[in-house]
């Protein structure tokens, strides 16, 4: 219980593109404790996506170690990583990635189909319903993705991520396809989950989304450039103007380089 959920040491990732070698990560070390809510930010090409792929055990680092929930996963093969993904990680994607023409409850059940829990159909359905209820979709179990709004679809995806009770929830731009109001709703769910003790790692390039996390890790040029804890109140959650109303939450963090100084000011 005391071990960090994520423990990365000197992680590098080199892609070979023909003759050219591209270093996407140049030695990243990061520790995420249980129960944290971390936002990983960075412009495109920063290595953010590569880091997310490695964190999600979708890819393997070139060098360095990655311990997830106490297990060294940096040298696992394809199938072993699939097992880890199934058991330890709950994915939430930008484009929801639900199976079309498949009911909400069946979508949520999907990870249980491949897991080692050996659940019967009834148990799977029960867990799926519980998970959907947790994201506020009780009563929508039999809806198809096409019958749900974007926010509801993303909530189905979150329910799917939660159904295996993973060590971390890894959300890759979860609000990228949503309008700001729905984004707030979705982010609120992540905050609720985090309040309930779930470790959440959020990858985003939107500062106002990152502002809802408790810690922001900024990646640039394949390195962790900044790692900040955010002190914030949750009073204004869900409000459309949360950022403006509460100056403490205002995160003056943009992707453009001129914002760097501002960030440092805020950090100090």
């Amino acid at each position, binding site marked *: 219980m005391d071990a960090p959920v994520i423990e990365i040491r000197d992680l590098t990732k080199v892609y070979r593109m023909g003759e050219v070698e591209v270093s996407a990560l140049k030695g990243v070390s990061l520790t995420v404790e249980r129960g944290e809510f971390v936002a990983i930010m960075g412009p495109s090409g920063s290595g953010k996506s590569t880091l997310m792929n490695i964190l999600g055990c979708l890819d393997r680092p070139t060098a360095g170690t990655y311990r997830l929930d106490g297990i060294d996963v940096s040298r696992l093969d394809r*199938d072993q990583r699939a097992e880890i993904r199934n058991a330890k990680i709950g994915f939430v994607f930008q484009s929801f990635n639900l199976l079309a023409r498949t009911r909400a409850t069946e979508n949520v059940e*999907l990870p249980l189909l491949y897991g080692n829990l050996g659940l019967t159909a009834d148990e799977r359905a029960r867990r799926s319903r519980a998970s959907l209820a947790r994201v506020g979709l009780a009563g929508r179990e039999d809806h198809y993705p096409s019958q749900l709004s974007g926010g509801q679809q993303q909530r189905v995806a979150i329910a799917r991520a939660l159904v295996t009770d993973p060590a971390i929830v890894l959300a890759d731009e979860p609000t990228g396809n949503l309008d700001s109001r729905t984004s707030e709703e979705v982010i609120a769910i992540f905050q609720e989950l985090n309040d309930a003790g779930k470790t959440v790692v959020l990858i985003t390039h939107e500062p106002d989304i990152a502002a809802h996390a408790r810690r922001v890790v900024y990646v640039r040029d394949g390195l962790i450039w900044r790692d900040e804890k955010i002190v914030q109140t949750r009073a204004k959650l869900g409000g459309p103007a949360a950022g403006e109303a509460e100056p403490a939450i205002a995160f003056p963090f943009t992707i453009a380089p001129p914002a760097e100084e501002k960030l440092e000011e805020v950090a100090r």
Partner: protein
Amino acid sequence: MKVATLRLWNITKVGLQAILRNKMRSLLTMLGIIIGVACVITMVAVGTGASSSIQATINSLGTNFIMLFPGASTQGGARTFSGESKITTEDVDAIKAECPAVAYVSPSVRSSAQVVAADLNWGTTVYGVGVDWPFIRAWNVADGDFFTDVDVRSAAKVAVLGATVADSLFPGGNALGSTIRIKHLPFKVVGVLDRKGGNMMGQDQDDQILAPYTTVMKQLQGTPRLGQVLISARSAGEVAEAQTEIDALLRQRHRIQPGEESDFSMRSQEEIASTSAQTSKTLSVLLGSAAAISLLVGGIGIMNIMLVSVTERTREIGIRLAIGAKGRHVLLQFLLEAIALSVVGGAIGVALGLLIPNLVTRFAGLPTQVSSGSVLLAFGFAAAIGIFFGFYPARKASRLDPIDALRYE
């Protein structure tokens, strides 16, 4: 173990659901297999039907049956004969008298003729045969009697009618004792044969008239030579012996020097049967392999659709891989889908394959015989095709990189 079984079942269900979700496409994909399997079964049924009807006809000749033809036989079993038959009625008498292994002998000469009775007429075949004919063909007279030895010796104008001829010329059933005219010559009807019905090739065996061969040769043909001779050995075991005896006798009678070719040839029922079996087997194989090709094409159709399906569902595969499906789970899912398509297609094909031969028999009049072997073979082949052609697309799906697959639009 229980977990793995449960998972296998779940993945099976996933594969089957995919088929149900794309009903139209699944049906079209299966169509190739359906047609292929139905074709194989039907073609083999037609081939087997033809073959077994020929066999039945030949077998109905009796197991101790020997046929004597004019002309030499050549090695391939083909007969080359032109010119006059050297077999005479005296030869026939000699065979009967001097070959102990021979039970019955009857010449057989044929002539097509228009037959008239009162105001009705009928075109049929007149066979000139001997009195042993009913014993050789195991064919009895239903009404009246067969003609006698005296009739044969005197070349009497008497006739025994096949049931169809009797029905056609004498709808009232008063054939016996009446007079019919064959090529303007009056013949007295002395008997009507048992009804045998059509043989399985669709020929009506009852559409014939039997008359003494002497009469037919003199009055209808005008030749002293015999077309063929039907012979019965005393038993099935004495067929070879009878053939040896006849061969020796006729060579002596025809004064053929040793080493010289005979001017006659013989076929036992067994030989005729095996020759025709060979022919119809070739026919079956030919039909069956043409159909098997269509089955193969159906299999390629499945592969094609599965490849399209894998590409189209790259995103789905990516999702499954990301949330913890292993390569082999995805492989299994797509493989099972392909197998299910071909097995269901195969089953529908089998159903059609059982139905179509019936329709062929009913509407085209061709004998058919569905063999369980061809059904099993076609179905097994269809299933095997599913595995074979489903494997490549399924492996392709299972080897996708989850990151790329998730990014796929």
